[in-house]
């Protein structure tokens, strides 16, 4: 690129020389990386000072546990982190959506431990994000020095400070967004390097626990691609050497390659996570939204150490520069993206909700918190600001005044970086922290545990059975917290079981049996468990092995098809990516025809590995939850039980409440009076997805509300069988006990629990009393206290 003085239409001044020197320095990768390292260090300084301590925030507990469990598998047991026995009685490590260890940054954890490693990872990712923003903005025409100045607007924005406060280290995967978008831009233009960059960034996000990052970035990528295709169409009218159809075709076909390569590279996580979520999808309700005033506060509000304050801060100093940049034609795309993502971020707070539409499309059905779309506003704002300064730079060729204006903008952005770095320190200082958990190296045991302090357990060779994640975890109700040994026989007289070796992925047991028996392991069953002898079975979700009489050296190994096949696919995809980069040294541009076909075959090869793994490795399918009521009775019957009251109330979509029954279990020493509500539904047609059942108990001056999406805790309404009676028995509802006897009316109805939360309309009341689209299903009389 020619230096500024060569383009000047006037005599160079001292300002020109200073500016040229600054721009030259910004273009030097060493100087730039040094600067970005300093900026990241400033933002992360407070967090680094307490890196070895444990953030007590609840999410920090399980995120730390996931990473520590993976570290222990590799560093202590010299195994791949396939099975995490430390949480919930055992879960698939690679199938845990928000675990972040399938990422290059896991090396940092291995080197420095899970606690210190988390903060160092955040620091490294910040540097990565700064450089990515620089490159993306420059690729959009933002110029070298402006791109350098605006990089902190995105990479230090409030989301990352907030992620430090609440220990969402996996949210630093958003630092990869500009890399992914840059890769997509280059790839659609036919670049091999762009192909690997785009696909690699997306795969990294997925491996880093980017449960929000990846699907949100997919939308941004779709926008970027659509805009680029539109640009190709417009350019086609002006450029005659290459036909418009050719360029459009190349862009579309490159998009296919990018998707194929991204799938292959991320298969090690995609397949196991898909398996987890297919078994128990995340069921989310609510109508989250962000009002315009909150959008403003998130982006430009005052710095604060509190939750919901400046959570997406980009800083006020950047605003005038963004306004300046809006006057450029090149700003149309980022401006439209800002408008689009603000619209998304407003969720249900806007009448025509784009987010509501998105929530009907898998996997977006599993996302909440629409305000997280604001991170893309930060990137759009950074881009427009750079374009604004670039405009001043160009105008500065004619007059120094514009160059001075550009310098003022750089000064404002430097001030903005200080504001953002300070926010990082403020949020880090606000964390409540515990000392480093003690390390206790001893035999592994399950304990009742506590998810609010879950991080302690893997350090202490214990697994916490009580746990939390955003979805229904496949967890056996038979798990025990007080066993003398973790592997046992229920039939004690059948023989003995002795543990000879324990590791997360492999258990070696000495079993002596005088008759055939079942060996129980105090961990969850998963289809990936295999044994060298006997048959692995799920006993109410508990891992167990049926063995014949005799002495057995039983080895149980966790070797799931999804993880093994996924790893093989990802390894092959890495080789393919390496080959593509090597080819790029000769020619970066992929041409249509044989070149594209060869590359397509290569990028599709990892998917072939998936298909082969699927056919070669056999494992049982996870059985669906049994269609039983909580008390173990059949859920699907021909007619309602005899003790129910016929109602025959009817809703839209062929939903009929045939009968209902309300039961009361008296209080005892451990609990208060418990009400159970049985609703006997019949579905005459397939109901729309997203429905739930609400139950309301009312008496004068008091109200108890509860709701559920899974009928009898087992099946969603849209999957319930048609034309039969479906017994939907609620969980026990604890009733308040007062001085006097109280009678409560019990109402029930259907609502769009995972959509707009409105009630389904009752179209025929049958024998029931109906009010406000809910049916009176019975009453319950609670005795006074002491009875």
């Amino acid at each position, binding site marked *: 690129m020619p230096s500024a003085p060569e383009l000047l239409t006037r005599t160079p001044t001292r300002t020109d020389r200073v500016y040229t020197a600054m721009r030259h320095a910004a273009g030097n990768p060493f100087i730039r990386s040094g600067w970005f390292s300093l900026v990241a260090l400033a933002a992360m300084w407070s967090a680094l000072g307490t890196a070895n301590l444990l953030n007590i925030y609840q999410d920090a507990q399980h995120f730390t546990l996931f990473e520590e469990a993976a570290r222990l598998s590799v560093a202590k047991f010299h195994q791949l982190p396939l099975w995490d026995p430390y949480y919930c009685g055992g879960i698939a490590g690679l199938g845990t959506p928000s675990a972040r260890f399938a990422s290059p940054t896991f090396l940092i954890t291995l080197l420095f431990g899970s606690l210190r490693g988390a903060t160092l990872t955040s620091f490294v990712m910040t540097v990565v994000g700064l450089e990515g923003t620089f490159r993306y903005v420059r690729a959009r025409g933002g110029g070298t020095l402006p791109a350098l100045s605006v990089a902190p607007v995105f990479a230090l924005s409030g989301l990352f400070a907030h992620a430090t406060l609440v220990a969402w280290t996996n949210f630093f995967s958003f630092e990869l967004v500009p890399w992914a978008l840059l890769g997509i831009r280059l790839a659609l233009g036919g670049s091999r390097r762009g192909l690997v960059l785009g696909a690699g960034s997306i795969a990294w996000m997925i491996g880093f626990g980017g449960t929000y990052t990846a699907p949100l970035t997919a939308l941004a990528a779709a926008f970027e691609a659509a805009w680029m295709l539109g640009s190709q169409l417009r350019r086609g009218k002006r450029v005659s050497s290459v036909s418009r159809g050719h360029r459009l075709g190349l862009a579309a076909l490159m998009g296919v390659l990018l998707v194929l390569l991204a799938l292959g590279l991320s298969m090690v996580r995609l397949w196991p996570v898909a398996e987890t979520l297919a078994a128990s999808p995340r069921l989310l309700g609510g109508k989250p939204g962000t009002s315009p005033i909150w959008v403003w506060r998130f982006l430009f509000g005052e710095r604060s150490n509190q939750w919901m304050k400046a959570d997406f801060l980009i800083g006020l100093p950047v605003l005038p520069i963004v306004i300046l940049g809006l006057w450029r034609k090149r700003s149309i795309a980022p401006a439209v993206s800002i408008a689009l993502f603000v619209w998304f971020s407003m969720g249900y707070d806007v009448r025509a909700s784009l987010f509501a539409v998105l929530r009907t499309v898998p996997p977006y059905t599993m996302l909440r918190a629409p305000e997280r779309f604001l991170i893309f506003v930060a990137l759009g704002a950074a881009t427009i600001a750079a374009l604004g300064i670039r405009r001043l730079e160009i105008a500065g060729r004619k007059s120094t005044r514009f160059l001075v204006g550009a310098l003022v903008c750089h000064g404002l952005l430097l001030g903005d970086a200080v504001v953002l770095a300070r926010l990082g320190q403020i949020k880090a200082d606000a964390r409540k922290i515990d000392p480093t958990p003690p390390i206790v190296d001893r035999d592994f045991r399950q304990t009742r545990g506590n998810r609010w302090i879950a991080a302690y357990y893997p350090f202490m060779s214990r697994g916490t059975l009580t746990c939390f994640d955003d979805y229904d975890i496949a*967890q056996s109700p038979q798990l025990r917290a007080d066993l003398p040994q973790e592997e046992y026989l229920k039939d004690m007289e059948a023989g003995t079981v002795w543990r000879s070796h324990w590791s997360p992925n492999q258990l070696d047991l000495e079993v002596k049996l005088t008759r055939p028996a079942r060996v129980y392991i105090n961990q969850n069953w998963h289809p990936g468990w295999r044994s060298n002898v006997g048959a692995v079975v799920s006993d109410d979700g508990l891992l167990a092995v049926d063995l014949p009489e005799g002495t057995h050296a039983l080895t149980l190994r966790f070797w799931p098809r999804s993880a093994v096949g996924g790893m093989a696919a990802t390894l092959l995809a890495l080789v393919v990516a390496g080959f593509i980069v090597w080819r790029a040294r000769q020619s970066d541009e992929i041409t249509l025809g044989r070149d594209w076909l060869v590359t397509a075959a290569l990028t599709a090869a990892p998917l072939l590995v998936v298909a082969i793994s699927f056919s070669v490795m056999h494992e049982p399918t996870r059985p669906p939850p049994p269609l039983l009521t909580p008390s173990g009775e059949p859920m699907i019957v021909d007619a309602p039980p005899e003790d129910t009251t016929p109602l025959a109330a009817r809703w839209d979509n062929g939903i009929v409440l045939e009968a209902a029954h309300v039961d009361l279990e008296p209080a005892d020493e451990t609990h208060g009076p418990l009400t159970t509500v049985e609703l006997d539904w019949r579905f005459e047609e397939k109901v729309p997805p997203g429905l739930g059942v609400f139950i309301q108990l009312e008496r004068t001056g008091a109200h108890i509300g509860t709701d559920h999406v899974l009928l009898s805790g087992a099946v969603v309404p849209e999957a319930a069988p048609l034309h039969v009676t479906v017994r939907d028995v609620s969980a026990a509802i604890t009733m308040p006990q007062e001085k006097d006897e109280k009678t409560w009316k019990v109402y029930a109805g259907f609502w769009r629990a995972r959509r707009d939360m409105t009630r389904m309309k009752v179209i025929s009341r049958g024998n029931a009393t109906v009010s406000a689209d809910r049916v009176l299903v019975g009453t319950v009389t609670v005795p006074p206290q002491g009875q």
Partner: protein
Amino acid sequence: MANLDSIQAYAGSSVIVAVACAALVHSRPSSAPGGLRTIAGMATQEFYVAAAEAEVQARKKSEGRFRGSPWSQDDDFHNKEAKFIRAYGKSHKLPMGSLVDALDRGTREHWPLPAGVAPDLKVLPCRPRLNY
């Protein structure tokens, strides 16, 4: 220009190395991670009894907070339990790790408890609420 580039490369590299060193030094632990601090058996047993007694009341409060969701009741109790452990450790100057360990050992080794006081060891499978 080539000379300037090499100077800039040298300067930039030096900054990167210096920053990396600063990050590593600043994040280093003040002391090596230790094992469980030995505390008197009586102190841990007293804690175990106090925690078990607190559990009864805490569970009743949690029942009232989430009347229709047994898992949420259990989860709310565990939140209270975590706060209790932290507060107990602070007031008795006992480390968290030792108290977490005491709860496990007390349960496994059946440490004595007052009549009518018994921790609920039943573990409910994770069933998060629709909205939280």
